[in-house]
């Protein structure tokens, strides 16, 4: 599509109970968003393996989002706390790799927070558009 603006590809890991529901609620509320997002649904943010996140970067993601229920609200008691601990490790790795910190973001979004979800996607997309494609994106991938 010549002449159209570059659209980043953002991979979001969403937990089934909260943030995936938040994305649904955004849809039900018709909160318009850029078409940059690709959601990978997992049952719990505690299922999000740092390996999954790195894999997404290596495959070509311009940004990766780790999302789940608000702390204290995890459907599986405390999976999001475990996700948070793993996220801290990921943040450090992203820094080591020289990636801009905006390319990895964590957000707790409940199933009712459709507007928050949409605003988050708009904000991240705008940030990534400023940064341009990820330096880890393999040649020829889009």
């Amino acid at each position, binding site marked *: 599509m010549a002449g159209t603006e570059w659209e980043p590809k953002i991979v979001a890991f969403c937990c*089934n109970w909260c943030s995936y529901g938040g994305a*649904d609620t955004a849809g039900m509320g018709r909160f318009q968003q850029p078409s940059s997002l690709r959601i990978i*649904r*997992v049952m719990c943010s505690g*299922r999000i393996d740092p390996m999954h996140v790195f894999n997404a970067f290596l495959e070509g993601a311009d940004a990766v989002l780790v999302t789940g229920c608000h702390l204290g609200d995890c459907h*599986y*008691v405390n999976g999001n706390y*475990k996700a948070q601990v793993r996220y801290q490790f990921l943040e450090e790795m992203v820094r080591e790799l020289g990636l801009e910190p905006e390319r990895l973001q964590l957000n707790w979004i409940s199933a009712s927070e459709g507007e928050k979800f949409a605003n988050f996607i708009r904000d991240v997309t705008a940030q990534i558009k400023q940064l341009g494609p990820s330096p880890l994106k393999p040649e020829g991938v889009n």
Partner: protein
Amino acid sequence: MVKESSVKETEAADTPRIGVFVCECGVNIGGVVNCRAVADYASTLPNVATSVVNKYACSDAGQSEIKQAIKDHDLNRVLVASCTPKTHEPIFRACVEEGGLNPYLFEFVNIREHCSWIHMQDKENATKKASELVRMGVSRAQLLEPLQSTVVPVTNKALVIGAGVAGMQAALDIADMGYKVYLVEKNPSIGGKMAQLDKTFPTNDCSICILGPKMVEVSRNRNIQLMTYSEVEEVEGYVGNFRARVRHKSRFVDVTTCTGCGSCVQKCPIEVPDFEFNEGIGTRKAIYVPFPQAVPLRAVVDRSVCIDCGACIKACQSHSIKMEQEETFSDLEVGVIVVTTGYDIYDPEPANDFGYGIYDNVITGMELERLLNASGPTMGKLVRPSDVKPPKRVGFIQCVGSRDKKRNRYCSGFCCMYALKDAQLIKEKYPDSEVYIMYMDIRAPFRNYEEFYDRARDMGIKFIRGKPGKVSEDRDNSVIVRVEDTLTNNIYNLELDLLVLSVGAVASESSERVRQLLKVSRAADGFMMEAHPKLKPVDTTLDGIFIGGVTQGPKDIPYSVSQGSACAARATRYLAQGKATTEGITVEVDEDICVGCGICVPMCPFQALSLADGKLAIIKALCKGCGTCAVACPTGALQQSHFKNQQLFAQVRSVFTFEGE
């Protein structure tokens, strides 16, 4: 016990034959996404045997088409691109099962909430994205494996938390269907907020006169075990097999021998404001019976103000007062849980809510209920707080704490109606009085409610459409309200003897505690969230846990009672069947790879994992399939079925394409 299945067992090794069904959902998807183009694109993807467009995939016709295609094309995987799995995954899983496939060989792609509805002005990119989402789904579908659900037995008892009118109704209905119910109430008496009300709209019948007999019915029902002055402390388990620990607070009174005669209350020298039942207007003693119609009609001692004088002990002829009584605990095993924990009344802020807490004669709607009530602190004589004289001019301000972006955006629904009711009661008591209602809109939507509004107008109650700008106080403690009637553009300075704030409902702290205990989702307004706003209004996303009454959001008495009954009906399905099917998604261990390190064991919040003889053992019935442990496994031996690493990797990989692909 593993579910017996007659369906064709598809081995993971079979070459996938995927059927793709792209749903137009009328114009919901079809109006934005070119579904034909998406289906055509899908047909070019590997292992896609057929790819078609459905008008409505979930309709009877749509589902028949899917089942027929499974036969015609010998499909062993089905992908539907339509709406959200949160509502429709069970429908399509059942459909493919009926079509002869294992229900977990179904893949759902959301191109409505996550595509057509959020890219309504960008049809080209919406179509492109939908195609990519289908491509991701196809990659994942190739690797899906058949799973078996587990059927678990259900303990045929129910726990109802909160004994307001909704909880009482739920408990009575479940009990009448023949099942044992534990009804837990944190207060010393059941009855909830309804017990505090004077009259009820739109019939103006006495609240406690209709509630009282129901409270007695609850206490007499042989299937209901009432636990008042008790709170649920811990809950664990899953549908059919919940274990709850209930703390019974000390009443310092033996409920089995106390007769509720009140001799102790008469002798007690300590008198404090009664915040529990009379909104702080009247007083109660350190030992008190909550209210005359309380169930159980038993005394309770407030040890925080008791001076241990022993007067009550001497007065009690049944020797029921036990100052050494300690709190006790019960461990309950139940199959289902109904949550009817109710709400709090919005507490007006002195700085922002029309002088409440600053001027004596500004009160809330609930305080007015107690002032109007025949068994209230004034024996039903309406007086204003500053000089205890009957008010001649009374004003109501609507929507205090509700429909306000700075506080709560939602409408509490019942405040218009109770203001109309209280205004009528004041007019009936004092026909010469002037009553004003200052409102934004009057909301009177159900049977006889609009007629009730008409009646209020016919009685001469004056309606001013406007929210007051300023409230001040006169020298004689009258309240001066400055308000513009936006219908006539007149500005009034009303001099009132009594100003009533029509406050709404807010999520209660005790409800929030129970919500966190049970892990029920929270809606944006702070109340508990239902599984589906229309089709599952009393279910939660947790199997076997139901919510009713104002716990789920503000509503009036008939609606709360209906929801109580609805909870009972929904919950009793499990009790009547005696079994429940749990999710087939669990973790599984590859014993050849597992080194028995045990790192995963403490990861599991449900104690499903343990090490036995250096090997990992999984109790499948306890595993809830979150997959957290699988991340911790250093060897990759633990995998979460349906969300295996290879399945997720494949899905992520197909987000992207190489140039020329």
